[in-house]
C-alpha cells in the first residue's frame, strides 16, 4: 500500500481540487480528508453515501465539583493554561493534563470525557472515505487526524493506493498526517506567500524524512514566480511534476459539487491528468 499525501503550507492553493481529481482519475478506493479544521473533500466526493458518524474524544477535561471544593485555589495556581478562574474550568483552555485533579486536597476535581469532534466514515461496496470535523476552538487536531487515518486504514486493507487531502500550515494536524505517508505532493502557487509557505512545508516534511514532489497551481498568474519555484526546487533536488493553469472552470466545478475531472475539456483538468500520470508512473507504480 502506498500513501500519497497532499499538502501546501499555505491555504487556498488547490489541495482539495487536486486531491479530488486524483481520486477520480486513479479510481482510488480508499481516501481521507485530514483537514479536520475545515474539511471540504466530502462536498465533492461523498457521492450521496451516508456517513457513519462517531464522537471523537480527544483530551479529557477537568471538572470541579463545587460541593467538595473549599476554594483553596491550588488548582488555579498550578494550572499552566490559565483554564481555571473562580473555581471553574473553561473547556476551551483546559488541555486535560490532570494537574488540578492530582493536586486538589479535597478530590473535588475529576477528569471527564469530552467530545472534541466527530469522525465520519463513508462506505460503499468498494470505496471507503474517512473524514472528520473538529469542534470549534478545540486543540486536539493532531489526535483527530491520527484517528481519521486509523479509521481509513482499518477498512482499506487491500488498497494499493491511499490518497489523503491534508491541511494548511505546518503544525500538529500536518505533522500527524505526514506520519506514514510514502510521498508528499506539495501544491504551491506562484505568489510570494505561496513560495514562502512551500519552503516551510518542504523543510517540515524533510525533518520527518518523507519524500516530496511539487506541482504549481495557477502557474500562469505570475510566470516570474513560477520560474523561481522551479529554480528553487531544482536547487534542493525536489522534482516539480507539473504546472496547472488558472482556470475559472475550477470554481464552477466546486459550486456544482463536482470534481474538476468531470470537466474533461477544461485546461485545469487536462493539466491535472498529465500530472497524475507522471506521479503514478514515476512514484507509485510498484516496479
Amino acid at each position, binding site marked *: 500500500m502506498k500513501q500519497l499525501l497532499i499538502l501546501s503550507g499555505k491555504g487556498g492553493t488547490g489541495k482539495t481540487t487536486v486531491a479530488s481529481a486524483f481520486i477520480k482519475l486513479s479510481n482510488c478506493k480508499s481516501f481521507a480528508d485530514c483537514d479536520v479544521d475545515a474539511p471540504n473533500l466530502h462536498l465533492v466526493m461523498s457521492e450521496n453515501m451516508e456517513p457513519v458518524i462517531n464522537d471523537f474524544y480527544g483530551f479529557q477535561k477537568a471538572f470541579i465539583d463545587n460541593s467538595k471544593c473549599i476554594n483553596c485555589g491550588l488548582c488555579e495556581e498550578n494550572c499552566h493554561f490559565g483554564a481555571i478562574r473562580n473555581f471553574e474550568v473553561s473547556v476551551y483552555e483546559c488541555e486535560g493534563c490532570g494537574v488540578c485533579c492530582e493536586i486538589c486536597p479535597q478530590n473535588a476535581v475529576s477528569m471527564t470525557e469530552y467530545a472534541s469532534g466527530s469522525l465520519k466514515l463513508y462506505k460503499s461496496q468498494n470505496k471507503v472515505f474517512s473524514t472528520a470535523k473538529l469542534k470549534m*476552538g478545540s486543540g486536539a487536531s493532531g489526535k483527530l487526524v491520527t484517528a481519521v487515518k486509523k479509521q481509513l486504514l482499518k477498512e482499506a486493507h487491500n488498497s494499493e493506493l491511499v490518497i489523503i487531502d491534508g491541511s494548511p500550515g505546518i503544525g500538529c494536524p500536518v505533522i500527524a498526517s505526514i506520519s506514514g505517508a510514502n510521498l508528499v505532493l506539495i501544491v504551491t502557487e506562484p505568489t510570494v506567500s505561496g513560495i514562502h509557505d512551500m519552503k516551510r512545508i518542504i523543510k517540515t516534511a524533510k525533518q520527518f524524512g518523507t519524500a516530496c514532489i511539487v506541482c504549481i497551481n495557477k502557474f500562469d498568474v505570475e510566470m516570474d514566480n513560477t520560474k523561481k519555484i522551479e529554480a528553487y526546487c531544482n536547487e534542493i533536488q525536489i522534482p516539480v511534476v507539473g504546472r496547472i493553469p488558472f482556470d475559472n472552470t475550477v470554481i464552477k466545478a466546486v459550486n456544482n459539487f463536482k470534481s474538476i475531472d468531470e470537466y474533461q475539456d477544461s485546461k485545469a483538468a487536462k493539466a491535472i491528468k498529465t500530472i497524475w500520470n507522471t506521479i503514478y508512473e514515476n512514484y507509485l507504480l510498484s516496479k
Partner: protein
Amino acid sequence: MKIAVLSGKGGTGKTFVSVNLACAAESAAQSNLNSVYVDCDVEEPNGNLFLKPTNIKKSGVNVTVPVVDNTKCTGCRKCSDFCKYNALAYVKDRLLIFNEVCHSCGGCIIFCPQKALKERQREIGVIEEGISGKTTVFSGNLNTGEVSGVPIIKELLPKLPDNGSVIIDCPPGSACTVMESIRQVDYCLLVAEPTLFGVHNLSMVYELFKLLKKPFGVVLNKCLADEENPSEQFCKENRITIIEKIPYDKEIGRLNSQGLVAVRENGTYKELFERILDKLVKESLQ
C-alpha cells in the same frame, strides 16, 4: 479598536485584507493613534512579505519542558504514568523525554517524589516587531517541526496597544489558535470566497462567533460579476452584515503575487479599504 480578520478556510484573502486595512489605517490614523498589524498565522506568517518591515526587533518564544537529573531519578515512573501526552517514558533504566509532544503542564515536575525533574526553556519560534510606513508590524513565526503555535500567540497579544487600529491576521479555521487570537478583540471580520467550500467553512466560523458573542461582519472577496455567489446567499439568509464586496481583479492578483500592498499602489483600492475601515469603526460602535 482591535479587529480580527478570519476565514474558515485558507486562501480566501485574510492576509490581503489585513495588510491593506492596516495600510488604509495609516492615512486615517491621527498622529496620536497607531496603526498596528499583527500576524497571528504563525504557521504560515505572510504579512511581512507585503509590509517588509524594517528596524526589526526579534525575541525568541520559549516553552517550558522538563529536564531530568538522572542521579536523583529512582525510576518510580510517577511522572510517565501521570503524563497524559506520553511525553515521558522510562526505558532501560533511563527516563526519556519527548519534548515535541510535551504540553508544558508542569505536572511531572510537581509530582516527582525525588524532585529529579526541573524546568528548562526550549525555543519554538520567534516574535518580530518592526515598522512599515506608519504601521507597527508584529509577526509570530513558529519553527518548522513544532506542533503548536498557541504559546507564540499568547505572547504576541499582550504586546498590542489598546488605542489606535489594531488589525489581527488570524490563522485559518476555527481551532485553538483562532480562539486564542480573537479572545480580546472588539470586532471580527470574516473573509469569504464565492465558492461552496467558502460557504461551508464560513458557516463553521459563524458558529464560533455566535458562541463567543462577538460582533462580526463579512467581506466577500474575489467576487465574479456574473457568477452566483453562494457566500453572499449564506450571508443574506442568516442576516449577516456584508461590509463590502471586493471584485475578482487580475490587478490584485498581480500585486499580491509580487508582494505589493494594493492600498499603497493604487488609489481605487486605497479608497475601497478606507471605506471598509470606516464601516468597521461604525459597526463596532453599535
